[in-house]
């Protein structure tokens, strides 16, 4: 897969991966042996007919391929870029053992991009109006998937989004260089052309409660995500220059702060930034800081092998010049006389004895404290669901981590007519899992609406 070379891409916010050409795509697709019992399909959370679309590509029937792909995936350009295929469909490919698995994700991306370049988009079949109305809380991957599925089944769908653009993490969380926003806009517009009503600047729980909405709609799906940031609860966390990953990324991605002052949301030019955390969000923050001209480092409690981020993104970060400090734990922020963070004190860790599960846990090393001078710290250690929906919807059962409790297979919650899926149920996870949850919930909602 051609990529921008690291020494070039670390200075721009353009997409890193450059995508297949039609020739490369066909060549790759021809490698697929079309297994009789494909091992890739069961690994896909949205059940895409993978061998099906690959066969079409191999035959240069791109239109046919798109039809098959979009039958199950209404956000293919997004998934082709951010889905961890290496943990899902590509992992079980028969060629995986020899390291030669079919590049399913890249083919998916190729198709979605190819379709976008075509003038005419093929409209899918939409069933006649059922007379039923569904409200969706949250315009992120889960909500958009439910919208796409239900609109095709003839129901009237309205998506309520708190921010001023649809997309959820796709628009505020994932940076431009991993997922260009023009793609998210395109995928969202596609839903609009199918007839989905998209309402932004609408905070369900504040602008209207779910119960108020149920007076007008037959069912509600809650896909409000996990947007509440975690802070480390160490001294100095309110110093100027300490950001949550959400704030940092929202300024850059949603508010396009990297184009400041053309876009008015200010973003500071830091010289040295430390990002605490090891997931995809941490990688995104560190790579963004780098692009803004800072010396950028990741501070992570464990070792490289245990980083939860996608390996591809870790490698990209390393190539671009992000510094990695493993087995390091922040103890406190140190501020200057004006209330600005000027350093972070950390402790080095070592892996202790294996516990009952056999995993070695990191233990602090006495006397190993080290101080890193810097002028900004981004806390990218995780998020949990925003408590607003739970607090304003009586009878909705909330779990101890603040997540909405929902049935794994159907997304049904403790309240009749209310379904939930995605990060608000599971805690922060991946885009594709949210979409899968949306798929199951849509099925259950449809069954319910048909029974009315």
């Amino acid at each position: 897969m051609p990529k921008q070379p690291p020494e070039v891409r670390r200075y721009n916010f353009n997409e890193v991966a450059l995508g297949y050409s039609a020739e490369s795509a066909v060549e790759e697709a021809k490698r697929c042996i079309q297994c009789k019992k494909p091992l890739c399909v069961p690994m896909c959370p949205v059940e895409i007919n993978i061998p099906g679309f690959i066969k079409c590509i191999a035959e240069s029937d791109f239109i046919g391929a798109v039809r098959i792909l979009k039958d199950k995936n209404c956000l293919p350009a997004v998934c082709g870029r951010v889905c961890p295929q290496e943990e899902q469909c590509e992992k079980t490919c028969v060629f995986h053992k020899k390291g030669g698995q079919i590049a399913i994700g890249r083919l998916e991306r190729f198709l979605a991009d190819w379709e976008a370049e075509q003038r005419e988009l093929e409209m899918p079949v939409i069933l006649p109006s059922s007379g039923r109305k569904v409200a969706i809380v949250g315009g992120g991957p889960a909500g958009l998937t439910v919208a796409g599925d239900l609109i095709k089944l003839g129901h009237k769908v309205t998506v309520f989004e708190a921010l001023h653009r649809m997309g959820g993490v796709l628009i505020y969380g994932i940076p431009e260089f991993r997922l260009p926003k023009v793609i998210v806009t395109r995928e969202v517009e596609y839903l609009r052309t199918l007839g989905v009503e998209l309402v932004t600047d609408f905070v369900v729980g504040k602008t209207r409660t779910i119960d108020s909405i149920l007076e007008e709609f037959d069912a509600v799906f809650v896909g409000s995500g996990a947007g509440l940031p975690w802070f480390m609860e160490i001294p100095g966390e309110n110093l100027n220059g300490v950001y949550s990953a959400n704030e940092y990324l929202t300024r850059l991605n949603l508010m396009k702060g990297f184009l400041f002052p053309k876009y008015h949301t200010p973003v500071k030019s830091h010289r040295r930034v430390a990002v605490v955390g090891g997931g995809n969000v941490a990688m995104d923050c560190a790579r963004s800081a780098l692009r803004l001209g800072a010396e950028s480092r990741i501070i992570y409690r464990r070792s490289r092998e245990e980083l939860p981020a996608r390996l591809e993104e870790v490698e990209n970060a390393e190539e671009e010049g992000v510094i990695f400090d493993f087995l390091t734990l922040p103890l406190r922020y140190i501020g200057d006389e004006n209330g600005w963070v000027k350093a972070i004190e950390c402790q080095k860790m070592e892996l202790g004895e294996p516990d009952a599960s056999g995993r070695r846990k990191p233990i602090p090393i006495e006397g190993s404290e080290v101080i890193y001078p810097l002028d900004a710290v981004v806390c990218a250690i995780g998020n949990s669901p925003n408590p607003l929906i739970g607090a304003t919807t009586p009878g909705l059962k909330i779990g101890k981590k603040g997540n909405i409790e929902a049935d794994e297979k159907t997304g049904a919650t403790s309240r009749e007519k209310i379904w939930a899926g995605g990060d608000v149920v599971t805690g922060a996870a991946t885009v594709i899992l949210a979409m899968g949850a949306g798929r199951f919930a849509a099925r259950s909602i449809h069954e319910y609406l048909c029974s009315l």
Partner: protein
Amino acid sequence: MDLNSVSQILDFAIEKEEEAAQFYRDLAAKMSQQHVGEVFESFAREEMGHKAKLIAVKRGDMTLIDSQRVTDMKIGDHLAEIVLSPDLDYKQALIVAMKAEKAAFQLYQGLASATDDANLKGILLTLAKEEARHKLRFEIEYEENFLREN
């Protein structure tokens, strides 16, 4: 506080477990988020379980097993003291518990070093280890849920 016999020490420890359970129950009642209240209720029940165990030990139905070293993950140590307020979340609840168990551990350790009686020292150190085990249980839960960087 008379701690001159194993029996008296166990009474003291049983009292401490009851206090801990009450502490968590009081917090549970004050929580603005119901699911966090339920978390504290579950901690209170755990303390009642410890209390029951110590009562059984006193009766002679059980012995406190003095096992090997208990791991100290030191997770709570550098975290800022959580100011108790009704708006705590699950994460903060675990930190409160970790620090409370650590305080109990330090209490028994302190008492153990204050006595020369080998028998009493022994039981106090064992009780300290029990508290260290409780602390570890909260540290593991904290690690599982909040140090997994999602």
